[in-house]
């Protein structure tokens, strides 16, 4: 017994714990500054200046917003089911954070004679894990909407659930085409293949487009923000929420955006690969650790571009009508994804 405990790689445990801590804080930090970025992008696209009072360029605005949310009164409606009411935002936040576990943030660092992998868990079913967690994300919306005991919230919850179920199908089908090319479900393997050959967006442009549209829908971002349509449902599922519980919902949306950007970058845009450079030869020249840092920078640059794209679309396109949303999902995206899957399969078979 004693010996088995000693034989356990304690450094690995420490390494992973530190990595989890870093990734969670970074996701929260990024989510914080996404709120600032969102307001800035919105302002610039509408010829305004955006927040510019708190700190230079409004850089402290997220702190002020967070403080405001913390200071607000915490209201739990009397007719709500209290346990579920509290569970909802927690679940939304949990699922948003969990997805980042399988994303490879960089190749590895070489420190203290160890190779420290920059991925919390390199599970061989990484994509399935992401799908599982993402489809759990709808429970945050569902439970929140249900527990509020409010007709608008319930409507929003139903809308959110049906939307996510519809778009998950197309998303899954578009991923299958990618998996037929990669032959692996592990995100690290997929990135390494892209490093060796080409970015998968080049061979799967249609698949990427479908995945992108579905990612918008999964994140509940405009034009798919049916479940929190301000003008129709008065905020939707988080109508009854106040204080930091509301903050959790809003935050979860931004964390979701960050993680789905990371997943898109990983699956289709080479992940942590530095574009136009052979990472392995670069590592021989300047060492593994600087390359690992550059890879993180490269991945984050891709993520930030995607996040900007999310915001750009949000401030350009109006919301879909509900029947248009369903029509787009079932009549357009799923047949397109099926066609993409069949075509990819045929080509893979033909090339042997």
């Amino acid at each position: 017994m004693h010996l088995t405990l000693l034989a356990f790689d304690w450094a690995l445990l420490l390494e992973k714990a530190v990595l989890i801590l870093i990734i969670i804080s970074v996701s929260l930090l990024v989510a914080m500054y996404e709120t600032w970025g969102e307001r800035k992008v919105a302002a610039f696209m509408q010829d305004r200046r955006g927040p510019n009072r708190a700190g230079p360029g409004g850089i402290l605005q997220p702190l002020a917003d967070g403080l405001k949310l913390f200071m607000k009164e915490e209201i739990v409606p009397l007719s709500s089911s209290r346990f579920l009411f509290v569970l909802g935002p927690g679940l939304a936040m949990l699922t948003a954070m969990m997805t980042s576990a399988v994303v490879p943030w960089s190749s590895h660092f070489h420190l203290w004679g160890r190779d420290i992998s920059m991925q919390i868990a390199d599970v061989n079913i990484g994509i399935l894990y992401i799908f599982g967690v993402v489809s759990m994300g709808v429970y945050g919306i569902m439970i929140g909407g249900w527990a509020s005991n409010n007709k608008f919230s319930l409507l929003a919850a139903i809308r959110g659930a049906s939307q996510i179920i519809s778009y998950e199908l197309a998303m899954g089908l578009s991923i299958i085409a990618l998996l037929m090319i990669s032959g692996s479900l592990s995100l690290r393997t997929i990135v390494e293949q892209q490093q060796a050959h080409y970015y998968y967006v080049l061979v799967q442009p249609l698949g990427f487009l479908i995945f992108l549209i579905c990612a918008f829908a999964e994140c509940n971002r405009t034009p798919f923000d049916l479940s929190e349509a301000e003008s129709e449902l008065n905020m939707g599922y988080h109508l009854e929420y106040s204080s930091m519980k509301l903050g959790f919902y809003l935050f979860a949306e931004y964390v979701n955006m960050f993680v789905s950007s990371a997943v898109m970058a990983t699956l289709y845009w080479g992940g942590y690969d530095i574009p136009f450079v052979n990472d392995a030869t670069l590592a021989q020249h300047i060492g593994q650790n600087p390359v690992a840092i550059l890879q993180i920078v490269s991945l984050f640059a891709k993520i930030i571009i995607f996040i900007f794209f999310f915001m750009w679309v949000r401030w350009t396109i109006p919301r879909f009508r509900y029947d248009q949303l369903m029509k787009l999902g079932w009549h357009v995206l799923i047949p397109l994804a099926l066609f993409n899957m069949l075509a990819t399969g045929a080509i893979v078979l033909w090339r042997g």
Partner: protein
Amino acid sequence: MQPLTSRAKAVDRKPMTMWEKMYLPAIAKGMSITFGHMFKKKPTVNYPEKQRPFSPVFRGLHVLNRDEQGRERCTACGLCAVACPAEAITMEAAERLPGEENLYREEKYAAKYEINMLRCIFCGLCEEACPKDAIYLSETFAPSNYTRKGFIYGKDELLIPDPVTQPEEYAKAKGQRH
């Protein structure tokens, strides 16, 4: 039917073409428009740091004027109060005592002079009515206040600083006018 105006336009109810049904070209067009707006000049003026210049004919808060020797010009004739359509001005006259010649220009002066800025419509008729050039409207507007009482401006708020003892403040209050 004859259209009522020359601007009438029939609503186009043709079914969408394949190109329009694809949505993506239209979305790309819209996104290029919003992206273009990112680099446009922002019309916003950062207010407390930067202020837009007022027009020289702007009618703002009232100022009770002094002459070059720093004496109050107002003689409490009451013409401004009569001219005022909003009945915002009230005053009480008093007689100048011997030894006060350096304070008041005329033999009679306003002991109390109040303008209710909530009633005032900033029409400038008081300025026009004044035979002594004692009141004019400046280029500042009334700041906000917590009470109604705060909007009743007395002589201490209205009087321009003394040009003899406080020349700098006087120049600032006088602004671009006269």
